[in-house]
């Protein structure tokens, strides 16, 4: 039992460790970050990224990749900054339609056996275009309730920490512990055998894409709640961040091997890495490059650990 437990948790051991190391480094550079306000500043942007990472994780579980996620999050943010406040009924309807489109994209990919990266690449144009149609120039205003939620002064630790915790726990139970969650992950691990047992692969694909739509929507809403105004280009980098977050969190591109808790930690690590680099007073030219280096180091560590594990096994 012990070894089984260890093997299960090894997947999120490294992400956790990287997160702790980078958090300590931030505290060391900037002791003032060790406060309610400091933590809030550090982590509130992690929430939308974590939502997006979880969304990407659902798609990766069934061996696909969503390259339209960033554009979609931007689209949701634009809807959130306009219709959701002005005409709530229309706003809710449009957001629901977005989720339906996600499910339809999943169905299309499954039925026509299309490569997901190409279809979602096309969808990234569609979402970006729609976002521009909704909000041609940056602006708009987030609904008050959303704004209030995102700036909620929760006791002891900031709201973002509660929300991240809740996100990790809810998705963990939904995907890793529920009965249908096992089928969904199985559809990534061995689709033929899942189909042979009588499950519909079309349905699993649609469910996973729809879930990606739901969590991508949360990402967009959280983002617009924080920034208060919308912009079609606001989240384009979320596509790549979310993929990096899943992988950083111990997930793999194929075979349905993912970890929701790891993905949330991965997203937090990426956010902190950004702050860490700005505290380092690094030449701003090298900010992006340093993110790349951090990504490479963590992934290299993972390979080393995996190799050591393989040797002892």
């Amino acid at each position, binding site marked *: 039992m012990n070894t*089984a437990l260890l*093997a299960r948790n090894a997947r999120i051991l490294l992400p956790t460790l990287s997160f702790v190391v980078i958090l300590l480094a931030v505290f060391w550079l900037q002791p003032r970050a060790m406060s309610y306000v400091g933590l809030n500043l550090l982590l509130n942007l992690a929430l939308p990224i974590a939502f997006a990472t979880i969304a990407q994780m659902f798609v990766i579980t069934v061996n696909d990749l969503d390259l339209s996620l960033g554009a979609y999050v931007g689209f949701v943010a634009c809807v959130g900054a306009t219709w959701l406040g002005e005409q709530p009924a229309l706003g809710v309807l449009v957001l629901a339609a977005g989720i339906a489109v996600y499910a339809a994209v999943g169905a299309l990919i499954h039925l026509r056996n299309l490569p997901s990266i190409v279809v979602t690449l096309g969808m990234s144009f569609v979402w970006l275009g729609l976002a521009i149609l909704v909000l041609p120039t940056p602006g708009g205003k987030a609904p008050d309730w959303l704004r209030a939620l995102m700036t909620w002064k929760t006791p002891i630790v900031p709201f973002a920490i509660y929300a991240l915790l809740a996100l990790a726990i809810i998705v963990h139970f939904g995907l890793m512990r529920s*009965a249908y969650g096992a*089928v969904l992950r199985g559809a990534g691990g061995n689709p033929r055998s899942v*189909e*042979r*047992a*009588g*499950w519909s692969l079309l349905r699993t694909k649609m469910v996973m894409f729809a879930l990606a739509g739901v969590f991508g929507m949360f990402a967009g809403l959280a983002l617009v709640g924080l920034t208060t105004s919308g912009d079609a280009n606001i989240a384009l980098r979320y596509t790549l961040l979310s993929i990096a977050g899943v992988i950083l969190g111990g997930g793999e591109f194929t075979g*349905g091997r993912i970890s929701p808790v790891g993905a949330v930690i991965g997203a937090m690590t990426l956010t902190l890495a950004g702050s860490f680099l700005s505290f380092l007073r690094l030449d701003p030219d090298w900010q992006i490059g340093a993110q790349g280096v951090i990504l490479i180091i963590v992934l290299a560590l993972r390979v080393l650990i995996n190799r050591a594990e393989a040797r002892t096994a």
Partner: protein
Amino acid sequence: MNIRPGAGHSAPGRFPVMQATTSSLISLGGVEKAFGAVRALSGVSLDVAAGTCVGLVGHNGAGKSTLMNILAGTLQPSAGRLGVAGEDVSAGYGVATANRLGVRCVFQELSLCPNLSVAENARILHPSLKGLGWRRRAAALIGGKLDAIFPGHDIEPGQIVGDLSIARRQMVEIARAFSATDRNVRLVILDEPTSSLDGVLAAQLLSFVRGFVAEGGTVILISHLLAEILNTSDRIVVMRDGGIVADRPASGFSRASLVESMGSVAREMDARHARTGGGAAERRVSATAKRQPEAAPLIAGRGEIVGLAGLGGHGQTDMLVRIFEGARMRTAGVTVEGRTAIVAGDRQTDGVFPLWSIGENATIASLGRMLRGMLIDPDAESRMAAEWKERIGIRTPDMRNPILSLSGGNQQKVLFARALGSDADIILMDDPMRGVDIGTKQEVYSIIRREADAGRTFLWYTTEMDELKHCDRVYVFRNGGIVAELSGDEITEDRVLHSSFEPAA
């Protein structure tokens, strides 16, 4: 002998008693199946009564797997009638119907989800395992079944399948096939279930099968190990060339008559040349198994045909790949003098390039010799293709046709052409005769002998006894290592089987 299956789920009453009518559980009439030009099944009729264990034997490519895939609902027959439990299901039979009627299949390629735990894999098969506490119930279901079949096993329901050894995965797969919830189990098809199990586990499984049958369950058992078939089955069905050639109670067969009806006629042995051992000939290969770096190495000399025997998956393929790579980069324990080429046995995963023509598949290992300047000379390429179409008899109107237009046996010939046509001194063959018809085999055997006489070295892994008789020496593998070396008249089925099973001395 009679192991009583454990906990509640498989109490005798759960197997529905067949009606007073002694109608068969399975009834096939004139089932045919063709893959393109290849006829895999030609009119198979078979009735299987409930509460029996039917042994199904036949050489590779005889049509056993195709027939079982049709029963499991994963292949649709081209023609014929199919009845299960008195219900005519010829129209629209598929996995859904098979599941509903309680037909289960343990396929040779494992069908578990490697990223899920053992219990979660049980859940995949049983839709009713849901709601609160499903994990506990799933663990109890699969754990109970494992206890019943393989007492003393050490598999935890929470373990991830991908972390288990092949043998344990096979055990889980078998236990899952026998597990019942509201989704009942009536017929279990076991396709080479013991191929990766050791003797103790295999015996546990077979005695469980007897118990299951005694309680009214039905089993179709496919195995290459004739003793297993003879001892476990009530009835034995022999297939050859896509049809049933014998069907009698097991007591009506002896080992010899079984072998005879499968179509292995005793071959004249004078084909064997008296040959010098590996020590005397110019040594080309010396390799130790990775698992036993200290043991005596496998040796092969110029002009020798060396067999690698033993049960499937006991390290023979790994050894061939090890020698292949040893010829390209320094590998501890492996010395290879000369160039190597491999003839893959598992065509789909190791050999064929599916998008290419027959010609391109044949010439890929020889392109280096066809360069004119930097470019491949297309004339030289088509000359080689034409030459080998002739020499090895590839049945196609045009070598420019896609490789997938060929039958499996002809695809295999292309892989032979690739290796034999290359400039390799050492040819490694990875059980290459699977699915190859008997005529082709004879042609290939004689080519191999000719090429060996001309100085080439062959390392030949095969699961078929008859082929070992073409070898000068044979190494028997078990659990990833060499356990015996046989030469000349020592190469007999008994000696090989004996070494394949006996615990290490």
